[in-house]
């Protein structure tokens, strides 16, 4: 059987994803460094201007920017579609970076007047991303598991941005009906379950086997993930907004999707032909443990077995700080060295000896980052659950050190770009 298709003819630019990833990594470090400073606030109610700002620094500056940057590299690889416009992606980064910085700043300072404008910048950046990736997916030959979840995630991102814009407008004009906190929770869960989770699950199904040298997973866990999120995310969000009875049903569906993902990751790890795990792979294997813990906490909250700001904060720390952040950090340990290697050494490959990816990295710093982030986030979750400012400060310090090690290990990789930038033109913007 032969199914010839046109070759894309060009590779994604290596520097395009790196802008997003570097911005995201720096934001992650700054957010981590803010935890010990905000220990007092974290021991209280989560609805505090500086904590809302911290949450947006993590969700927008760290998680969203990383996913967008990674998308520009991974869509061409896993879906075999070129990015529709790299120029639009560059503008999108600038707009979004400005919007995120402004949003976090305005939220931290409690300034309502300009918030709508900077939230508008975020929405514009999101719109540019949606347009770019949407047009990249146009004409996709096979709507695989990954492609479907990516499309689901893009829809979730669009809705989350609109929701955020409406919330920002509501801060000025106060027009939204209903209670405030359920609306805020709905916004959070739309971002987590509608945008972040589908994309992470979809990309993981293609990329983890690639790096662990395992067969791609298949079968019922995929259907459970797809349908669990497709049904669960809208149920949770609509339940929080209007029909509380739907929340537990939706939470169960999302929980099933989380278990399906964890099962697949375990299968991939068991079937891998790569016996030695580097720190990037270890982090992505640890992360589903946090996902299962977050699922348990989420179900506990959904079924009203527990409640209040302490449980909600612990849930946010485990899901955003544990599952999502460790997954992203692990993938960045894999993606960034490849992008740097491709830009600097690929042009020489075959003609002279070139270093392996491992030789570009700093395994000691990666290991330190993995242990400090993993242990620190777990301790932070316990500390916020207890509401103990001293323990929050201490565990936040550990997370900060982990983020510093993470940043240092990325900087070690990125330093290989320095002579390259002065010597040669970009490799990625290649032949038509």
């Amino acid at each position, binding site marked *: *059987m*032969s*199914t*010839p*298709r046109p*070759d*894309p*003819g*060009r*590779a*994604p630019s290596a520097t395009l994803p790196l802008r997003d990833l570097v911005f995201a990594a720096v934001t992650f470090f700054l957010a981590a460094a803010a935890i010990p400073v905000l220990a007092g606030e974290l021991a209280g109610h989560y609805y505090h201007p500086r904590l809302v700002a911290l949450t947006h620094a993590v969700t927008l500056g760290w998680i969203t920017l990383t996913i967008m940057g990674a998308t520009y590299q991974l869509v*061409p*690889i896993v879906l*075999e579609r*070129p990015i529709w416009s790299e120029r639009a992606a560059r503008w999108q980064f600038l707009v979004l970076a400005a919007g995120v910085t402004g949003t976090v700043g305005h939220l931290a300072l409690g300034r309502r007047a300009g918030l709508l404008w900077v939230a508008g910048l975020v929405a514009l950046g999101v719109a540019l991303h949606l347009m770019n990736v949407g047009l990249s997916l146009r004409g996709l030959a096979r709507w695989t598991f990954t492609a479907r979840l990516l499309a689901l995630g893009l829809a979730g991102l669009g809705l989350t941005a609109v929701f955020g814009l409406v919330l920002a407008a509501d801060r000025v004009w106060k027009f939204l009906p209903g209670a405030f906190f359920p609306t805020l929770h709905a916004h959070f869960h739309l971002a987590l379950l509608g945008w972040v989770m589908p994309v992470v699950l979809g990309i993981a199904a293609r990329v983890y086997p*690639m*790096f662990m*040298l395992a067969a791609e997973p298949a079968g019922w866990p995929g259907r459970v993930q797809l349908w669990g999120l497709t049904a669960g995310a809208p149920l949770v969000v609509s339940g929080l907004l209007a029909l509380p009875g739907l929340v537990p049903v939706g939470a169960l569906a999302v929980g099933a999707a989380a278990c399906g993902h964890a099962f697949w990751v375990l299968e991939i790890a068991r079937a891998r*032909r*790569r*016996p*030695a795990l*580097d720190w990037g792979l270890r982090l992505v294997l640890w992360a589903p443990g946090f996902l299962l813990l977050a699922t348990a906490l989420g179900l506990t909250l959904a079924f009203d077995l527990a409640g209040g700001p302490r449980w909600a904060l612990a849930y946010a720390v485990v899901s955003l700080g544990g599952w999502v952040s460790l997954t992203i950090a692990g993938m960045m340990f894999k993606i960034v060295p*490849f992008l740097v*290697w*491709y830009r600097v050494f*690929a*042009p020489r*490959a*075959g*003609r002279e*000896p*070139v270093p*392996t*990816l*491992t*030789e570009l990295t700093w*395994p000691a710093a990666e290991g330190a980052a993995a242990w400090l982030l993993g242990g620190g986030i777990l301790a932070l979750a316990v500390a916020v659950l207890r509401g103990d400012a001293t323990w929050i400060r201490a565990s936040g310090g550990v997370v900060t050190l982990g983020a510093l090690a993470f940043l240092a290990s990325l900087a070690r990789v990125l330093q290989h770009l320095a002579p390259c930038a002065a010597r040669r033109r970009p*490799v*990625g913007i*290649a*032949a038509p």
Partner: protein
Amino acid sequence: MISGDTTLGGLLDAHPELIDVLATYHTHFKQLRNRLLRRVMAPRITVAQAARIAGVPAAELLAVIRRTVGDADAGPPEAGEPARALAAAPKPAALAALPVSMQVHVDVRDDIKKGVEPFARIMAAVKSLDAGQALSLRTPFEPVPLYDVLGKRGFAHWTLRRADDDWSVWFYRGEGGTAPEGAATAATAGAGRRSIDVRGLEPPQPMVLVLHELERLGVGERLEVIHDRRPIFLYPLLAERGFAHTTDEPQPGVVRIVIEKRGAA
């Protein structure tokens, strides 16, 4: 008395300072500082084999070792095996006839760099070989001890030195006709076409292998690459280097890229 047949295992137990001596000949002997690697590998390497890995005459290394450990009874240096000629032997017919789909690739360079003992992984791969399959092993040094180990299991070997720290060794069933029937057909059909299977390799190894093969592509030759996905990052490099390429999927999950010099008939 220490001879060329003495294994490093016993020597290093008694004289751990020899690791530094060996490391001056080849940096990969530094890996023997790792206790696990030393326990697994050192008993399998003789002094003569170590000399071959280091690319020096066995007598020279033997003399240095004897001096270092103060072997008072040391006799005159053995003639031993001379330093290995670096010119590659031609590829054996049985191996040349073997299609890439019959070759199992194992790359242990990263394992050794990280101090992970690779022997178990290699032997597991050998154990999993079907009749007619060959093992294609990538290592940072010439895996001389394996020649004996796998030789006893009926495997011949062919070695290609890509760089000082980059070796490929194919272990295959000998010339006794164990190559599968299809292989000869493939060899005939493959005149003017070289083939490389990069499935199951971690990025960017497939790209490195393909570009390495392309640099050695003869006039009028084509390189067929068997991949598990479309190599999006490779295409622009092919264009830059003046290669034309076509891609198809002969079966689900298998991508085939045929590359040739642009302008070649």
